[in-house]
């Protein structure tokens, strides 16, 4: 795999020292390890489920696939086309033009647009302005990412509800009420809540490593600021923006609990169907739908990666100086821009701070006003809870341990895949798309595959091989997280000037040395963003954790939140949710500071 590594080896005397051997072959070893982990905890489990689409009752058949593809309920006007009955298209289009897939794609598209519109100004402010607390806010941008959907639903219903603070404020201002809940708009806003931070974070990383000298050159050659932005800066940012958009589309295309909680069953997505079919153990139909979902997501990913490869070119990070919130030299333009920033801050307050604060308020509100009883419950459960009950302290500890371990797994995996796929032809684009697959497969299917493939185990040589518990959970989190590292690192790595790396190699550095000492420091902002995402994915992961933790005490904070729901009070769950928020906020700031030290 690492041809470069081998030529470097030949240049020097053969050395049997294992550490030297390891350094020389590190990328190859990491590549093999990555592939092995992917195979065991992702590809094998998922493919056993996908196979169910064509294997029904022990026989191979395409019946179910054909049935699903030609069902207008699923594919709308495409169904008669798949069936080859072109005459039917008109009639079906009149009845259900979009079908479940069409509608799902439509809501994902709206959600993507909303997320980009909401995320970009954030990226601009975070990367172009200097203000107190900027780094902390940047660290906290991914907070929404870790919030269990159940908490987001609680926060949204409380904040945007008929009797919520938003409507109270609007009524007080004499604007009248907004009825957002249980509509398509509610889903789109909730999706933006989750994904705009993703767009913002990825774009901020890119913006912080643009080459401002090119802009200055353009300006000095007479381009006005708009042209300089459009022709010089925008092309440098576009790959990151599109990365954010792509990830958003893929996520919202497979969204499910939030859709049911805030939209209602009328607005069900394909993933809702996959979930309920799996509940009903109708595997063939569920697998067919899931394969179709994955096909759509992977096709988009592949198309995007082709684009990204074309765009990458040599440049060095050299960001422009940051602006201050209160400009040194007041001008109309500067004033207008600051007004925009304030307006944006207001939107952020409504969309992000509002629901989160509402959830915290929920945890402090009992039937008769302000109370700490739900936090008392958490303490009590920790101290007095029976061994078979879920304890908050154990959940916090597990989340932090798994999060840290996930970083150790996902960062090397992600960087390795980035390096191996950055330089190469069409084949490596395919490999890159395949490496993104963990994002493109339905969470329900991954969970089912893990249950059948890992928890139940495989019969090998008369013994049953099982992979469960903490190691399996960390591996699963690593697999779910490393694509974020890749998507944050690869585009920047592609932009690193090759001559720098080549000089290092010419001076005798191994491939890994060059990577660690030369390339990674140049793309540090991407690595830091990737690390933050990896940690966030681990902390927020629910589907596979809950399955792999079965029968052990390896549950995490989101699992605890879920288990504290019930008996007509959201208090304990929202208190646990608040604990999750505080613990992850602190961790994010620490992760970012550690990354930042390296970054600087």
């Amino acid at each position, binding site marked *: 795999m690492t041809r470069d590594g081998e030529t470097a080896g030949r240049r020097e005397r053969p050395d049997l020292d294992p550490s030297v051997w390891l350094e020389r072959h590190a990328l190859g070893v990491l590549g093999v390890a990555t592939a092995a982990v992917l195979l065991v905890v992702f590809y094998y489990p998922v493919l056993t489920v996908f196979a169910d689409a064509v294997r029904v009752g022990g026989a191979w058949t395409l019946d179910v696939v054909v049935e699903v593809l030609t069902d207008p*309920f699923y594919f709308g006007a495409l169904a008669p086309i798949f069936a080859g009955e072109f005459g039917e298209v008109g009639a079906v289009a009149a009845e*259900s033009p*979009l*079908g*479940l897939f*069409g*509608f799902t794609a*439509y*809501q994902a598209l709206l959600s993507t647009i909303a997320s980009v519109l909401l995320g970009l100004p954030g990226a601009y402010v975070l990367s172009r302005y200097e203000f107190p607390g900027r780094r902390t806010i940047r660290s906290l941008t991914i907070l929404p990412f870790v919030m269990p959907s159940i908490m987001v*639903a*609680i926060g949204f*219903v*409380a904040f945007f*509800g*008929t*009797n*919520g603070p938003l409507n109270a404020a609007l009524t007080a201002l004499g604007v009248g009420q907004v009825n957002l*809940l*249980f509509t398509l708009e509610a889903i789109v806003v909730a999706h933006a809540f989750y994904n705009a931070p993703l767009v913002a974070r990825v774009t901020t990383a890119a913006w912080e490593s643009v080459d401002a000298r090119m802009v200055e050159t353009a300006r000095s050659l007479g381009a006005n600021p708009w042209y300089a932005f459009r022709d010089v800066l925008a092309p440098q940012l576009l790959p990151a923006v599109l990365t954010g958009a792509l990830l958003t589309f893929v996520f919202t295309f497979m969204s499910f*609990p939030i*859709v*049911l*909680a805030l939209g*209602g*069953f*009328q*607005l*069900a997505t394909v993933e*809702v*169907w996959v979930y*309920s079919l799996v*509940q*009903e*153990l109708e595997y063939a139909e569920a697998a067919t739908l899931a394969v179709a979902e994955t096909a759509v997501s992977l096709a988009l990913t592949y198309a995007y990666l082709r684009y990204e490869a074309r765009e990458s070119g040599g440049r060095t990070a050299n960001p422009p100086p940051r602006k201050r919130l209160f400009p040194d030299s007041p001008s109309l333009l500067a004033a207008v821009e600051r007004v925009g920033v304030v307006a944006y801050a207001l939107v952020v307050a409504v969309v992000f701070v509002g629901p989160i604060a509402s959830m915290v308020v929920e945890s402090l509100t009992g*039937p*008769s006003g302000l109370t700490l009883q739900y936090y008392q*419950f958490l303490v009590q*459960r920790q101290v007095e809870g*029976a061994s*078979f*009950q*879920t304890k908050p302290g154990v959940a916090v500890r597990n989340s932090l341990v798994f999060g840290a371990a996930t970083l150790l797994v996902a960062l090397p995996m992600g960087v390795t895949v980035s390096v191996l796929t950055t330089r190469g032809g069409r084949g490596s684009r395919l490999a890159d798309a395949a490496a993104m697959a963990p994002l493109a497969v339905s969470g329900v299917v991954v969970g089912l595959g893990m*249950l*059948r493939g890992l928890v*139940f185990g495989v019969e090998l040589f008369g013994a*049953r091989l099982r992979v469960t518990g903490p190691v399996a959970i960390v591996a699963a989190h690593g697999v779910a997280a490393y694509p974020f590292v890749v998507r944050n690192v690869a585009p920047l790595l592609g932009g690193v000037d090759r001559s720098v790396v080549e000089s290092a190699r010419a001076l005798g550095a191994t491939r890994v040395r060059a990577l660690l000492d030369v390339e990674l420091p140049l793309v540090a902002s991407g690595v830091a963003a990737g690390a933050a995402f990896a940690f966030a994915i681990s902390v927020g992961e629910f589907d596979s954790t809950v*399955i792999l933790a*079965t*029968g052990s005490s390896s549950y995490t904070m989101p699992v605890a939140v879920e*288990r*504290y*729901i*019930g*008996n*007509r*009070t*959201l*208090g*304990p*769950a929202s208190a646990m949710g608040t604990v999750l928020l505080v613990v992850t906020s602190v961790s994010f700031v620490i992760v970012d500071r550690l990354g930042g030290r390296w970054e600087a």
Partner: protein
Amino acid sequence: MRRRTLLKHGATATVVGLAGCVGGDEGDQDTTTEATPTETPMQETTEETTETTTEKSLSGTLKVATYSSFIDAPSTAPGGWLKKAFEKRHPDVTVKYQTPDNEVNYFIQRAAQGVDIDTDVYVGLNVDHLIRIDEKLGDKQLFASTGSELSNYGQVKDGLKFDPQNRAVPYDTGYISLVYDESGVDAAPETFQDLLKDQYSGDLIVQNAKTSITGRAFMLWTVNTLGEEQYLDYWKKLKNNGIKILGSWSDAYTAYENGEAPMVVSYSTDQVYANRQDKDLTKHQVGFLNDQGYANPEGMAKFADTDNPELAEEFMDFVLTKRAQTKIAQLNVQFPATDWAPLSDEFRKYAKEPENPVTFTYEELQGNLDGWVDSWARQIAGGR
């Protein structure tokens, strides 16, 4: 092989002899239960001491699988009490709980894949589960028929028995009903047809019949009452009248408590919770449509492959005792499934029972359930 004993039924049989002759019909339940409430605690202690001395011979670990809120719900859950009480009665026995995330499906999948199951008892079965098990596993047996082996089985109300093969033994039941806020509606709807009126437009939150137990029960209730031919048409009208269909009971109840709509589909024991949490009872009124409530009994069953069959049966029998039935009802906030557990004062005041409980039997659902749910789901979803 585990140690077994032949003495198993000795003591419990006398208990049945003493208390096993209370009337069985749901209708006259009130008359049979009212007599006892004050003396019960004393009786219970004596019952317990005699039994601990005679039943020491059972030993080992009993693995009980259940849904997570049975042992882990924040306010009250019956699991902890059940374990303690059973272990006290059988000092050499340890009860170990398992709560797989996929609940019964976990075991159906294991059985389907030929992976061994070492769990002894499952607590929390309903009739849908049985239909799924029989459909998916065919001849493979997941649960063994136990009902008639249990000395307390005679106390289970006949109307609640939902398994023709006597594998699942009911231990409690809930009734699906409307819960409404008095100040939000002029008058509570009394019939299914009422819900279609303009005055209730946008007023009802229900759950999705595909993913939620209460949602499915409510949907089946409409099939039961309006008929297989009519229910889809009825739902079309409900949809046009602004009904909100959310994913889970918790989603729906949260929205209801936040005042998004004045009516929600929930359980008829709603006021018990409201009272325990000092909530405003006018916001927790229970309404039965057509004087009906859809009964949703929960059952327990012994795994066919258990290597602890006697212990498993002893446990199930214990769950059916008067004392456990009283306690579980209280802690799980459901009605007892037997006719000998006295309702507490709290329940008699706050837990409502419908005049006419309705439900589908196993036979009626078999072969129909999937079709009914699927037609319903396709009519509602699709973003139209």
